[in-house]
């Protein structure tokens, strides 16, 4: 069981926790945090595939992809938080009621 | 199959362009609209006549345009197609004149005349279509273009009638769509007349082809108002008279009947249809509809409703004629296509005249109408005798051939059906004639909705008289060369020589 397999397994677990959190939790902020966790899981998966053995150099491409991925995740998380904040200001709602 | 001439397209366009242009006109431009309309009507009649003589000289008019790799839009002028095209174009001309008189101060006339022309484009398209898919395209286009006409009055029950109308026609259209696609898949693109394609495949896919036949038949049956699918016809009587005259006597109803004729003669071929005893099923349904329609008509006090139910039963004569194998019965069926159209349109015109001039919609109010509106009721009486099958009116000719065909084919029960239905026709039409001519009206002086010297407006009177005389002439001069009967006989003979 090489080191990277542990990482990839944790990344899968993180992904599943994130996905579960988005669907199951009620509060907006909880859902947004869950998406960030899911993102973290995915990026960990990328990184875990970058270096399989201690000898060779780490594969730069996943690293670059992760950097880009993280920035995109940040942008969408920021937007989601702004949305949640605005909704709270306008209506005081903190979770999805099943209205229209 | 390649394009030999643009005539079929010209015939279609002659009513399509006025239709579209009128949509764009403003409501006040009455003169322009009427001239456009009439020009379109005359042009169409002229072109159909020219095509007819061309066809007599043996020329062929094909127009092929491939929509998709194996989806071709084909227009072809053959005897049967021309026959129906001539009917719809002539009657469209007459009904346009009638409609101009009928609606002269009504609202939304642009919308009415626009969709009126589109609807005739569709029905001529059905007549001229060369293959199954083009037929289907125009068949559905007919539904769409007739809906605004049915709901033209804009009252709540008109809209409700429109809803029922759509419920049936769209349902039927979907079933037809399924059938047409299935047929296409099993037998590839079929041009009308190529009955050998299915003849080859029948042994391979007997069940599929049978299912497809009955799917297409149901789809067509809706418009041909065969028994279980006829509900829309009486309810859409709420439409204005010219609509119920042209649509429910000629365009829509005949499209279904014409489709059945095409399906049995030009797609499956009579041999197969008989061998797989499709015709037996069709005969049973048609016969039941004839009786059912007449019985229901017996108990309608509303004038147009009674005419509607009579249409339901009359159109099934065509289906019955088709269902009996033999040249004579198919002649009867094909000629009844025209005769029924002419006679029924006279009746609807008459009903329209009475309703518009005196506001009488019920039969019980028709006492003494003969004296008040002699010409209208005279034409109506001729049409009534035609419907009952009393010579010399046109109806007799078709019933004569149907009867002979039935005897020749040895299905004697059909004669029984013809007799019972003639008796029923007499039972529900003659009382109207009796009231009109032999009864005294309740109150002497009745205010006229449309005052004027003549019994009703000229534009509404002339069409009634013309179609009345036509239905008489079609009977008396039946054997003359250009008459509907001679064409029909020629078509039928050609069918059976194949």
């Amino acid at each position, binding site marked *: 069981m090489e080191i990277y397999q542990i990482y990839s397994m944790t990344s899968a677990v993180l992904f599943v926790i994130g996905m579960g959190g*988005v669907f199951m939790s009620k509060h907006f902020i909880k859902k947004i945090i869950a*998406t960030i966790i899911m993102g973290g899981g995915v990026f960990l998966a990328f990184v875990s595939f970058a270096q399989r053995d201690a000898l060779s150099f780490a594969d730069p491409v996943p690293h670059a992809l992760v950097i880009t991925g993280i920035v*995109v995740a940040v942008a969408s998380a920021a*937007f*989601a938080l702004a*949305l949640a904040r605005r909704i709270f200001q306008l209506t005081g709602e903190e979770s999805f009621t099943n209205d*229209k | 199959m390649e394009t030999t001439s643009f005539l079929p397209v010209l015939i279609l366009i002659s009513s399509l362009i006025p239709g579209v242009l009128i949509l764009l006109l403003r409501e006040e431009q009455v003169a322009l609209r009427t001239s456009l309309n009439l020009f379109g009507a005359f042009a169409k009649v002229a072109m159909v006549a020219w095509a007819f003589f061309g066809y007599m000289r043996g020329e062929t008019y094909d127009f092929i345009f491939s929509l998709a790799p194996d989806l071709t839009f084909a227009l072809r002028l053959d005897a049967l197609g021309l026959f129906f095209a001539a009917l719809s174009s002539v009657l469209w001309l007459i009904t346009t004149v009638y409609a101009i008189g009928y609606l002269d101060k009504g609202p939304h006339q642009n919308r009415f005349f626009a969709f009126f022309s589109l609807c005739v484009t569709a029905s001529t398209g059905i007549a001229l279509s060369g293959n199954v898919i083009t037929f289907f395209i125009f068949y559905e286009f007919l539904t769409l273009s007739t809906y605004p006409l049915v*709901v033209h009055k804009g009252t709540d029950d008109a*809209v409700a009638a429109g809803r029922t109308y759509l419920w049936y026609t769209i349902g039927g259209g979907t079933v037809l769509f399924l059938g047409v696609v299935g047929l296409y898949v099993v037998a590839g693109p079929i041009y009308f007349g190529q009955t050998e394609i299915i003849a080859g495949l029948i042994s391979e896919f007997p069940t599929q082809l049978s299912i497809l036949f009955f799917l297409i038949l149901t789809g067509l049956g809706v418009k041909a108002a065969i028994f279980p699918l006829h509900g829309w016809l009486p309810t859409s009587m709420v439409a204005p008279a010219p609509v119920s005259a042209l649509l429910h006597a000629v365009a829509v109803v005949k499209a279904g009947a014409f489709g059945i004729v095409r399906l049995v003669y030009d797609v499956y071929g009579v041999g197969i249809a008989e061998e797989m005893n499709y015709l037996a099923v069709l005969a049973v349904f048609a016969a039941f509809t004839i009786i059912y329609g007449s019985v229901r008509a017996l108990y309608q006090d509303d004038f147009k409703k009674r005419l509607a139910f009579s249409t339901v039963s009359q159109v099934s004569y065509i289906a019955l004629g088709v269902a009996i194998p033999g040249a004579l019965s198919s002649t009867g069926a094909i000629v009844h296509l025209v005769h029924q159209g002419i006679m029924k349109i006279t009746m609807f015109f008459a009903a329209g005249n009475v309703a518009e001039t005196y506001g009488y919609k019920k039969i019980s109010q028709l006492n003494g109408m003969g004296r008040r509106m002699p010409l209208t009721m005279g034409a109506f009486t001729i049409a009534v005798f035609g419907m009952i099958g009393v010579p010399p009116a046109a109806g007799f000719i078709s019933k004569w051939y149907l009867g002979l065909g039935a005897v020749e084919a040895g299905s004697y029960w059909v004669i029984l059906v013809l007799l019972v239905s003639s008796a029923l026709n007499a039972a529900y039409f003659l009382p109207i004639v009796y009231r009109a001519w032999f009864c005294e009206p309740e109150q002497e002086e009745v205010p006229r909705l449309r005052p004027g010297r003549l019994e009703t407006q000229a534009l509404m009177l002339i069409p009634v008289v013309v179609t009345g005389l036509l239905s008489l002439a079609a009977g008396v001069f039946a054997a003359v060369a250009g008459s509907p009967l001679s064409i029909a006989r020629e078509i039928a003979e050609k069918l059976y020589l194949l």
Partner: protein
Amino acid sequence: MTDLPTSPYPALLVGLPVMMAILSLFFRPRGKAFLGLIGCLLTAVLAIFAFVEVTQLGTVIHRLGGWEPPLGILLRMDALAAVFIGMTALVGALISLYAWRYFDAQDTSTDGFPLFWPLWLFLWAGLNGLFLSNDLFNLFVTLEVIGISAVALAVLSGKAGALVSGLRYLLAAITGSMSYLFGVALIYGSTGTLDLEMLGQVLEAGPATTFALLVMTLGLMIKMAGFPFHFWLPPAHSNSLAPVSALLSALVVKGAFYILLRLWMEVFGVSLTYAAGQLIGVAGAIAVIWGSWQAFMQTSLKLIVAHSSVAQLGYLLMVFPLLILPSGVSAASADWLSPAWTASVYQVLSHAFAKASFFLSAGIIVMAVGHDRIESLRDLVGHMRMTALAIGLAGVSLIGLPPSGGFMGKWMLLKGIFLSGQWWWAPVVLVGSLLTAGYIFMLLRLAFAPTGEKEPFQPVPKRLEVFALLLAVSSFLIVLPADYLIQFLEGSEVFGSGIETVLKGGAYGNN
């Protein structure tokens, strides 16, 4: 791969809208709108030029940065992409013209939502990028660009309902992208390349590939509002402004479908099974029935149109079972592939035009009446003829009655269904179109019905109605060039292709 002609168009197609977006930021609202419109029209013209070039040269590529894949990113514009880009251009241009007049007519307090234009240009750039990109990760980035700009557009109106449905849409979009990305990670982990073409050859069946296929398909299904995951679409599309909901419904959801189609057909051929196709087909079928029934039940106009989108997307999903061949059937012998592909292309095209026209007309009605309850439609025919005609024509195309584009789509779909012997899809298609006829003619019934009030409709700028009508008519006009379009599409190798599922275990590669 490398022998295909290169051309600058793919790069320009993404660059130009972004450039115009950036420029428009520097101006006052009036300037933003004007520059935005210019940007849209320029991009549309550029797209048409690119389309023409593809018709001449065939598939065109553009190696970004001059590097060969797998290291560099490749932009590829084959016939299918060209058609999608052309569609986006036409529909986008007309919607932009509509939006220009629409925001002008809005009340001045919000002075016309200036941010609409930069966001829409970014969205357009994202869409073009998505149709062109040949790299898995790049697809993720374009998906995100589209996702964020779409949600931003959706919440522009600022109403509470719009914000909540916007957040729901955003969260769904993020979840979808992340699960898609997770698939990309797995693919990269097992093959080391991200280029679609190379993946097609290199990828072999195995647990990782199957897992990746699973996760990516689900991610894209969420973004595309496939059946179980359609929950976010109706509120989002019905709460936003008219031009925005037209964009969302007509174009945005098509992007995710495009990627799903490409992935299944080009990349995951090895591990797909006939049964999987059937499942997607079932999801599509349920979407068709469920969406149409819900639309039939709604009483507000925009919600009807939104639910109708869910249904029409169901039709797109129903094409998949036809494209995955039962075991033992070779792609060459299957003659139903070309009709199936034509069906999907025509369904996309006709739905785009018809749905855009429908939403724009709904916008006009809401502008004229103030609310969108369908009662407001009464006597529409009497007062606003062109809008009524637009709704009529668009409706006819959605139902699939001839001679509309929708009819061509349904005809080819049914033909494919019958040819392939999977007859059980036919009743679903027909019930779907019957229900569609139900709610379309419900609207028309009201349009013809009489109304008590004197002046039910405030005056509305004529040009809006013209654009809505133009869109509806073009959903009919696309039928005319059908023959040439299909020949042109034959050019791209993915069009008309099918997946032969030889008897092999999907997930475990145990053949």
